[in-house]
């Protein structure tokens, strides 16, 4: 009997190992190809020059600039609204309204991102007659809100109730107690915000409908702007080898940035579990 159990055990471990390999193969392939084909496109010019006409290999500094600008502005929308909504759901939302907000938060997290792009296209792009930085940032920002909301609410739920009780029993006002709860969950909240930032960094569909694209440096909040994901899309399907190389370069840079954010998150969460003891 024991040997049959041991055999079963080994088969199962073997199966999980095979599954891991199957899962890793495409991932490793992507990383390998993006690095091999993207790395040669990276040079100082990549960041300092604007998009070239076909056959003059230069840079896409404007796309790097555009992505940082769009994501930066989007976090200014997504993080404050998301964190405050999360605090509301966790600390004040023990009622029908709170539960409803939470439910729709979960639904919106799973919503296809292009829907956010369509919404902004109708609300901002169409009335202002054109793609713009503002529209792109709003699209990414609204996409970010539910992700940050749900992550914040989950992080705050991990804070033991004894902390809320201890603070309340000291005659501390509710808003101040909530702030104390947030400070006890700050690495969890920061992790959620960073992961949401990484997530929107690579979003392409909503940007195509809102920020458009441009071959110039940023030239105004109400003007279209270039971004790495839109360049990967537009250049990747172009017939020009130089542009295709640049698209690989853009993919490489994007992956490096997202990986950097994920490593930061890892470090944050590791510190937390050390401190938590």
């Amino acid at each position, binding site marked *: 009997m024991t040997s049959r159990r041991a055999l079963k055990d080994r088969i199962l471990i073997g199966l999980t190992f095979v599954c891991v390999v199957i899962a890793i193969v495409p991932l490793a392939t992507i990383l390998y190809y993006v690095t091999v084909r993207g790395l040669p496109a990276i040079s100082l010019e990549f960041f300092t020059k604007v998009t070239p006409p076909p056959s003059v290999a230069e840079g896409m500094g404007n796309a790097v600039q555009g992505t940082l600008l769009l994501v930066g502005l989007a976090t200014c929308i997504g993080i404050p609204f998301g964190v405050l909504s999360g605090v509301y759901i966790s600390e004040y939302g023990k009622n029908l309204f709170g539960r409803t907000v939470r439910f729709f938060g979960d639904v919106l997290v799973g919503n296809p991102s292009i829907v956010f792009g369509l919404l902004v296209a109708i609300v901002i792009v169409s009335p202002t007659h054109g793609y713009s930085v503002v529209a792109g940032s709003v699209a990414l920002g609204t996409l970010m809100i539910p992700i940050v909301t749900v992550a914040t609410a989950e992080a705050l739920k991990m804070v033991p109730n004894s902390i809320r009780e201890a603070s309340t029993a000291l005659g501390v006002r509710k808003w101040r107690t909530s702030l104390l709860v947030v400070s*006890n969950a700050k690495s969890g909240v920061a992790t959620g915000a960073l992961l949401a930032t990484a997530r929107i960094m690579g979003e392409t569909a909503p940007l195509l409908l809102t920020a458009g694209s441009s071959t110039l440096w940023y030239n105004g909040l109400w003007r279209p702007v270039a971004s790495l994901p839109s360049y990967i899309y537009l250049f990747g399907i172009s017939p020009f080898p130089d542009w295709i190389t640049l698209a690989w370069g853009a993919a490489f840079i994007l992956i490096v940035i997202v990986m950097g954010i994920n490593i930061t998150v890892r470090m944050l969460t590791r510190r937390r579990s050390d401190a938590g003891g």
Partner: protein
Amino acid sequence: MPVGSRDSGDGSGFAALNELGPGASPGAGIEIKRLCAFYGRKQALYDIDLRIPPNQVTAMIGPSGCGKSTLIRCINRMHEMIPDASVSGQILLHGVDVYGGSMDATDVRRRIGMVFQKPNPFPNMSISDNVVAGLKLNGVRDKGRLHQRAKECLEKVYLWDEVKDELKRSGASLSGGQQQRLCIARALAIEPEVILMDEPCSALDPTATAKIEELIAELKTQYTVVIVTHNMQQASRVADHTAFMYLGKLIEYGETAMIFERPREELTERYITGKFG
């Protein structure tokens, strides 16, 4: 603007309360009249009438679920933190109803401190910050005064000599018994008139328990103490008066010696002799 009131961040009169200085606030008596408490539709307390004398220790005993914790959580209005919880009746502190319009819940909790079953120091605060957490969270900023108050309160709970060289360490790094004394010091720091203790020793070893019991005996010179306990020996050791509760009703209340030696009710006798409970 008078200098003394500058500390009060929210203008709630909290600073004025503290201007009384240590020891200046005598313990207050509490009068409970026809108190009923509910969790949703479920009634937990039935028409409790009880006079808790000032500057004495009053113990609440009774089997689990008899409502003794609910009763003391009604006194400082912690009961209402639970969704759908409600009360009827009156609880008079110095003759003023804590559920009346003249006091809001935070005022009540500043005058009636609480110590919980499980020591619950704020894990992200140092030892000294834990002691004065109630003051800091209510907007007191004067560093010198905070340090002075932290020292006074740690001395009162005989923790000063044990921690004076490591005041910056996390409050969570102390032993269980030390943590509970830290929590008592934290409750004392806001200068309450009454201290409620909800089974303060149930998570502690006998030595730590003995220290807390000694402390309770001293606290009554300055405060009114109400303690909930499972441990009848503890009630007989520390309490001047004892109330026996059963199924949400106050069965018997009187001097501790009377309750333990010559109870009037048969139910009380059966409980204290260990025949049920």
